[in-house]
């Protein structure tokens, strides 16, 4: 029988496996002998950046991961946070950047598939998806096709699975021309006493393979995701993983059905580096060894060899460990759902991960050698040269820029995207895409989960510490604007090549900024993912920590909206702001997008504002005190006002025609609107948070800074920009 172990290992072969000469020497040292070819493949994926976090591990330890609600922090497939009354939320965000650049539809689709599996592996039924997307310049020849493909891929997978995609974000920048970012987030709900872990239990337990058969998909996907792109990488690409959301829907239902009983000891999805990393991770967590009989693995193609079976990234597969004697339960459930199911091995007591092929041993490596002994680097860091300050901007009539900014690719309406996502399936979505945060109720309870994803690579680039802290604050502010309290954060750290000291510095500073803000705002980081080497031909992406924050709201479904209705009084909450233009959308429109420092965060102000918003939104005996809440972020006060007018009702507001006042992006501020008779109640609930009445809603014009804009025209500009760019403006979104 051909095992794939007969190929010689030359320095070229080692290099092709993404191991540096030093790393190969380390491998020889810890293994104490030459690896077989199969084992080399196993090391190449287990020691890849993607699986081992070798460049990032030491930094991630600085994040706050504990809190009174945290049931499971980083280290499992997804983190879990207690919601009370026997419920818990399980969530994680993950990147699928490199595969999506190569094949946007399948790359994005399988990204969604992967994050869904991470969540239902834990026993949670997924209730919401989000997507955080970055693309190159709109005018770059590849951008349109990437947007179309990625969005269709996310839709294709999430819609078929019947999980609503309720929020997301889409930004464009030249730094993403050669590396788009596709970060997918999933949250599920699980009974807090029925959480499943990826572990092994005792020796003698049986290892089952369930789901789709294994083919030659994505072999070396994990190592691909860990190297820089360069000229020609589009040609050399390996077999693309093709997603099958239908199989995954069956896998979801079958797993949750089997989880009703107590047959399962441990369960782990096969993601990057497939069978290898899932089995090694389980053995590592269980502190055991594992024997896999690779010839028993269900195969989709003929002639597959152990090397391929171990490295394949075929989708929609899981490993399950059960106690002996429970086999028939597993077979019954998976056969009911027409899925492959096979017993492929068992848990052993010697701490060694072994694979056999028709009785012949093809790999035998101590688990600790693959996991704990993996290289960890404290890579050199170097702060880059200081950036130029933001020059003075001469602009006689800043307010006149509003329509231009509304048509900006980052600001314009993204209905074209989210209408392709089924955001209502499940009949729990009470706040849909387009709001500050989305909200999904949990049927049969008063609990609601709120979701937001936010990241501003431009501000992080200007100052990774402050920029990242600002993003955490903004996420929490968005949740407060729908009345929710943050309970956890998942992050996806998208950066360039960590072997460059300036990139490593960005990474480390960004982690520290996140850590500080999360501590200050009481938001534990419960899961996340790191995607490095997002560079093409030496050009790195903007440092982009993708953040996904989850909030909890309890009570009657909130009635707050982000759209004005007639006859409301509008106030600006928080400090008036210093007119902070560096890092703003406005400054970018003058070409100053790599200038100055981003706005600082004042945590005390921020917390007081969020608490006040939650008090204002909670439906008291007389209903909520306010009708509208909307946070100030990109585009500052004027963009926030304009967005509140998109429902068709305008208003007249007292703001000076001054760029800083109109477009400054200072943190810690939000707009509210309420019926004038509620003014006193609102004031009492503010408990000292500064507020300034800006004016009244009503009419069909936005009157501000000495100008009047017809709301229908603003809306047309805002709504049409994105579809016009994609489709030539021939179709409605």
């Amino acid at each position, binding site marked *: 029988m051909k095992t794939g172990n007969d190929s010689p290992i030359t320095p070229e072969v080692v290099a092709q496996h993404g191991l540096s000469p030093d790393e190969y020497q380390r491998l020889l040292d810890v293994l104490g002998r030459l690896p077989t070819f199969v084992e080399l493949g196993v090391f190449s994926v287990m020691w890849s950046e993607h699986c081992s976090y070798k460049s990032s591990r030491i930094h991630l330890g600085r994040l706050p991961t504990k809190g009174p609600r945290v049931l499971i922090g980083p280290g499992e497939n997804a983190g879990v946070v207690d919601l009370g009354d026997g419920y818990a939320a399980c969530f994680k965000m993950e990147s699928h950047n490199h595969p999506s650049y*190569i*094949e946007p*539809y*399948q790359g994005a689709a399988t990204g969604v598939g992967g994050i869904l599996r991470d969540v239902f592996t834990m026993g949670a039924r997924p209730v919401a998806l989000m997507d955080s997307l970055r693309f190159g310049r709109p005018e770059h020849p590849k951008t349109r096709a990437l947007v179309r493909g990625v969005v269709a891929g996310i839709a294709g997978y999430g819609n078929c699975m019947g999980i609503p995609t309720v929020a997301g974000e889409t930004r464009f920048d030249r730094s993403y021309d050669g590396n788009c970012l596709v970060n997918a987030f999933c949250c599920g709900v699980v009974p807090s006493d029925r959480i499943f872990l990826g572990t092994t239990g005792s020796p003698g337990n049986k290892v089952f393979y369930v789901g789709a058969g294994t*083919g*030659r*998909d994505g072999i070396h996907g994990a190592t691909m995701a860990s190297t820089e792109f360069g000229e020609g990488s589009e040609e050399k*690409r390996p*077999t*693309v*993983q*093709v*997603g*099958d959301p*239908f*199989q995954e829907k069956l896998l979801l239902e079958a797993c949750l059905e089997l989880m009703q009983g107590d047959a399962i000891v441990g369960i782990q999805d096969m993601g990057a580096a497939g069978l290898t990393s899932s089995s090694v991770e389980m053995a590592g967590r269980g502190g055991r060894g594992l024997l896999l009989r690779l010839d028993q693995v269900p195969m*989709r*193609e003929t002639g597959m060899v152990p090397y391929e079976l171990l490295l394949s990234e*075929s989708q929609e597969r899981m490993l399950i460990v059960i106690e002996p004697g429970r086999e028939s339960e597993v077979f019954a459930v998976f056969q009911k759902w*027409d899925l492959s199911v096979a017993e492929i091995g068992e848990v052993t007591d010697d701490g060694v991960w072994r694979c056999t092929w028709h009785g012949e041993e093809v790999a035998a490596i101590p688990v600790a050698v693959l996991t704990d002994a993996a290289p960890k680097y404290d890579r050199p860091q170097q702060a880059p040269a200081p950036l130029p300050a933001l020059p003075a901007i001469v602009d006689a009539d800043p307010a006149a820029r509003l329509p231009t900014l509304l048509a900006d690719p980052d600001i314009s309406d993204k209905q074209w995207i989210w209408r392709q996502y089924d955001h209502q399936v499940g009949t729990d979505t009470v706040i849909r895409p387009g709001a500050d945060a989305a909200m999904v109720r949990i049927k049969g309870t008063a609990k609601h989960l709120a979701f937001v994803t936010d990241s501003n690579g431009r501000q992080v680039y200007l100052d990774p510490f402050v920029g990242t802290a600002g993003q955490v604050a903004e996420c929490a502010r968005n949740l407060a604007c729908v009345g929710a309290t943050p309970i956890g954060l998942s992050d996806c750290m998208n950066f360039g090549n960590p072997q460059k000291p300036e990139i490593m510095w960005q990474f480390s500073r960004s982690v520290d900024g996140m850590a500080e803000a999360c501590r200050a705002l009481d938001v534990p980081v419960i899961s996340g993912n790191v995607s490095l080497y997002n560079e093409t031909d030496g050009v790195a992406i903007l440092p982009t920590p993708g953040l996904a924050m989850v909030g909890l709201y309890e009570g009657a479904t909130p009635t707050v909206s982000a759209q004005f209705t007639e006859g409301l009084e509008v106030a600006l909450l928080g400090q008036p702001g210093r007119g902070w233009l560096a890092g703003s959308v406005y400054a970018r429109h003058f070409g100053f997008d790599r200038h100055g420092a981003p706005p600082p965060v004042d945590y005390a102000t921020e917390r007081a504002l969020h608490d006040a918003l939650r008090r204002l939104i909670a439906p008291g005996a007389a209903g909520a005190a306010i009708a509208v809440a909307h946070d100030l972020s990109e585009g500052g006060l004027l963009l926030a006002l304009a967005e509140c007018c998109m429902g068709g009702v305008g208003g007249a507001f007292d703001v000076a025609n001054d760029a800083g006042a109109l477009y400054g992006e200072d943190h810690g501020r939000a707009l509210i609107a309420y019926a004038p008779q509620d003014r006193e109640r609102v004031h009492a609930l503010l408990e000292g948070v500064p507020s300034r009445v800006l004016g009244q809603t009503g009419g069909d014009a936005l009157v501000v800074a000495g100008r009047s804009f017809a709301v229908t025209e603003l809306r047309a500009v805002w709504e049409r920009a994105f579809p016009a760019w994609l489709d030539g403006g021939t179709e409605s979104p």
Partner: protein
Amino acid sequence: MRARVFVTLKQGVHDPAGKAVQGGLVSMGYEEVQAVRIGKVFDIELADGGPEAVVRSRLDEMCKKLLANMVIESFRVELL
């Protein structure tokens, strides 16, 4: 002038739809069906395009640029 273009998944690329159809046929009693792979056929009406070599090379371009996803699909052109 007419052309027919076949676009099929490259060997080894997973075809979930083909697999579902195969499963469907078997469960309907057509147990002899061992595998199904699904491709696309484009029937293309062309204005008279000069010499065959030019027509072919333009069709080839269209396939590479639009009709086929060269990452996972291959194509074949027939002039009718």
